[in-house]
């Protein structure tokens, strides 16, 4: 099969256009919805804890989990990878068990430690997901984990503000970066 250089250039242009269209489409299937959702929940939990006490936290987090499952099911209907279900099952098992373990030991000493523990479990899931799938999740997981620990141990007096700005804010900001700039 022989073609002219002009035809080859046109074909390479079509390949690039198709790749760009697919990249744009795939961008909607990355984790930014989850980052926005959980960033928003962290900001809400932190501000409610600061001004009204931490009681509403569990209801917000349950709503967050339900929304996360709905997003995953919707995304799975169009793009899917074999093994993803097992991986999600593994993450769900980690989250359920890790949330039971502290109560076996008598429960977290206060609401700040309880939130920090739950947030570190979530960030552990980010790190594991990052190792397997997208490198940005690994870095977000490590950075936010470090920020949570710094807030808990170095700035306990402003812990909820710290979480709202550096925890929730980092997740929301990363969501925007992933949606609009990450290639």
């Amino acid at each position, binding site marked *: *099969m*022989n*073609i*002219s*250089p002009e035809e*080859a*250039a046109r*074909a*390479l242009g*079509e*390949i*690039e*256009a*198709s*790749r760009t*269209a*697919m*990249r744009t*489409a*795939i961008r909607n299937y990355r984790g930014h919805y989850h980052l926005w959702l959980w960033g928003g929940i962290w900001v809400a939990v932190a501000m409610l804890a600061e001004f009204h006490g931490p009681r509403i936290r569990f209801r917000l987090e349950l709503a967050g989990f339900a929304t996360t499952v709905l997003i995953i099911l919707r995304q*799975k*209907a*169009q*793009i*899917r*990878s*074999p*093994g993803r279900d097992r991986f999600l099952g593994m993450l769900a098992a980690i989250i359920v068990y890790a949330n039971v373990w502290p109560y076996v030991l008598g429960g977290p000493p206060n609401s700040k430690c309880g939130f920090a523990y739950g947030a570190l479990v979530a960030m552990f899931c980010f790190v594991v997901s990052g190792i397997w799938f997208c490198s940005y999740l690994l870095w977000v997981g490590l950075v936010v984990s470090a920020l949570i620990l710094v807030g808990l141990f170095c700035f306990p007096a402003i812990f909820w503000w710290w979480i709202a700005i550096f925890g929730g804010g980092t997740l929301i900001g990363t969501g925007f970066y992933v949606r609009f700039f990450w290639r």
Partner: protein
Amino acid sequence: MDELDAIIHQPARLQIMAALCQLRPSTQVDFTFLKTHLNLTDGNLGAHLLTLEEKGYIAVEKTFVARRPKTFVSATAAGRRAFDTHAAALRAILKSK
């Protein structure tokens, strides 16, 4: 020198292979998703997918999601190799200009 592949070179099939090879290996996309993002009609996409499947370049899996029939498509390892070879041949033609 890399050879051009007449099956892949057809414009619609070239678009399909470029899109599928953009995904991670073994990741599958829904037929409707592919149709929308490549601006192809049902019949056109279906016919080209059949050609690519017969050649072993793509794998097609028909299944049900929420009781609705769904067709998922992915590039095979042979398809990815053939596409890379074809793209390299196109670049070589441009270089030799």
